């Protein structure tokens, strides 16, 4: 059986771990197969879990999270016949497929939509913790908003500094309210479980929010402007299918961007009414240009800076 190992946030973090789980479940539903999975409690369990599953003959082993580099690097060579798939970080080994997403480009598009939707000219961002990946979201979002409206004012907030930051909807909601009081009428939440507080607060204030990772439009219909989807679920589902067989396994780096529909913005019945055709047209235009390479969106994690 294949195995999926989630990161410390846990299987149901309303973020990429949950997306990974959903992907695996989708795979299960489609193929009728079964998979093993595990939630970590601390960093020391990473290698333990990998060895454990690999030793049991699980193949492939899929893991989500940027903290897997060291553990996977150590273990991959011990199990040359096992296929590993890691999401959000890069490990170079012949039996490892590294999948990373262009979160910055997806965020760029929702930034465009946010700036176009905003009547106040102020848009906000609530991140869980000030870590590089979240900065990557913010930096893309800010670039997109600026592109659509060079005068846009951006408010950048983070929930906290402890692991509770990812599960603190109350503080996140307060950040959103403060943002509203400071003039923001669209806020992008990239804060895991905390983001729910932003969605709720914006709904209560009669303003708009932007969801993250999975399509969160349904959570507060009519208030969630769109979601910056990052198809970890699709990646996991594909990995479970492809990596099971050495013939279809694709070791090396896989980058999922706009072109691959790995990232993007979501439109469905819940938010259709919120997006004007002009907005969609503008977003599609930017999307095409990014894919074509006419616009380069800066990726914060390449040099830890954001050109704004």
């Amino acid at each position, binding site marked *: 059986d294949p195995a999926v190992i989630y990161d410390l946030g846990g299987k149901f*973090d309303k973020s990429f771990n949950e997306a990974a789980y959903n992907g695996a479940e989708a795979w299960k539903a489609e193929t009728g197969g079964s998979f093993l999975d595990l939630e970590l409690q601390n960093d020391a369990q990473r290698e333990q879990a990998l060895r454990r599953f690999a030793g049991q003959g699980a193949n492939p082993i899929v893991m989500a999270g940027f903290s897997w580099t060291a553990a996977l690097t150590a273990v991959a060579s011990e199990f040359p016949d096992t296929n590993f798939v890691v999401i959000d970080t890069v490990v170079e080994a012949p039996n490892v497929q590294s999948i990373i997403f262009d979160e910055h480009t997806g965020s760029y598009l929702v930034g465009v939509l946010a700036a176009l939707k905003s009547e106040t000219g102020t848009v906000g961002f609530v991140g869980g913790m*000030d870590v590089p990946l979240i900065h990557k979201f913010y930096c893309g979002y800010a670039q997109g908003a600026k592109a659509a409206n060079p005068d846009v004012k951006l*408010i*950048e907030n*983070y929930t906290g500094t402890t692991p509770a930051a990812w*599960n603190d909807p109350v503080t996140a909601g307060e950040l959103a309210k403060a943002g509203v009081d400071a003039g923001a009428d669209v806020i992008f939440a990239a804060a895991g479980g*905390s983001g729910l507080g932003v969605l709720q607060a914006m709904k209560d204030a009669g303003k708009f929010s932007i969801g993250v990772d999975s399509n969160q439009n349904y*959570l507060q219909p009519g208030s969630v402007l769109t979601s910056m989807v990052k198809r970890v679920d699709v990646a996991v589902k594909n990995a479970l299918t492809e990596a099971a067989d050495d013939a279809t396994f694709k070791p090396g780096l896989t980058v999922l961007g706009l072109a691959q529909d790995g990232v993007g913005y979501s439109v469905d019945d819940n938010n259709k009414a919120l997006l004007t055709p002009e907005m969609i047209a503008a977003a599609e235009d930017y999307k095409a240009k990014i894919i074509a390479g006419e616009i380069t969106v800066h990726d914060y994690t390449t040099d830890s800076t954001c050109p704004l």
Partner: protein
Amino acid sequence: MDLAAILSILDATIRLSTPLLLACLAGLYSERAGLFDIGLEGKMLAAAFAAGAVAAITGSAWIGLAAGMAVSLSTALLQGVAAITLKGNQLIAGVAINMLAAGMTTFLGQTWFSQGGRTPPLGEGGRFVPITLPFANELAGIPIIGPIYYELISGHYILVYIAFLMVAVTAYVLYRTRFGLRLRAVGESPKAVDTAGISVVKLRYQAVIITGLLCGIAGAYFSIAQGSGFGNNMTAGKGYIALAALIFAKWKPVPAMFTCLLFGFLDALQIRLQGARLGGVEIPVQAIQALPYVLTVILLAGFIGKAVGPKAGGVAYTKER
């Protein structure tokens, strides 16, 4: 800063201090009775879960609140049995309660709702809605007073008003009633209480019950008022902050209110200062996030001085082997 900004921050102060205040008052009863309570966090969390779960199922915020209070009460009684009847270590009892609540809430939440421990988002009725006080709309137009009344005083959840009302109630109970007299006495000198023919054990259980009920309201506030539904560990350490506030306030109700307002204010300030610049340089967000804690330490060291708690705090009362 204009009036709107000031009102915005004060409004947030009230919202943020409410759960602290309820938990702080809750702790006050136990600690005044001579029971250290570091289990405020756990009781709030358990209550937040119960309130969120029951409100989601019944669609009634009031039933949710009752469930939150009931669960917090039973948690408090468990802690009470350990600390009072079995004379166990009060700190361990608190630690155990905190861990138990952290594990149980997510575990049961996942078992029942399969949303990773979260309870389903609450619809209309499942959640308390802000109440508009009489004449708020009519008076809103009056300069200064109007906005203050409309924004700051009116428009909060009923639990907010309950919290502030509890300050007066607590002060009254503590200083003006027989129960309050005995409560204060048992925390200072259980022996004096015992020889005066009053049951120390009964008195301490009464205190624990009140603590449980108030923590229940505090917890419910998180999940069915301020938030919409329960999220894992959503109390995020507020129980510890409430404990700190209680010590800061020297175990007195009115100072407790001001301390909680201060802590709430610092948090509201932190939220609004994120992204601020000092001399053209952006202050690291972490520095701003740490600000409430740093300021608390400074205020404590600079102005509050020694806090001496109830003398008999922390020790079980044994009259005989």
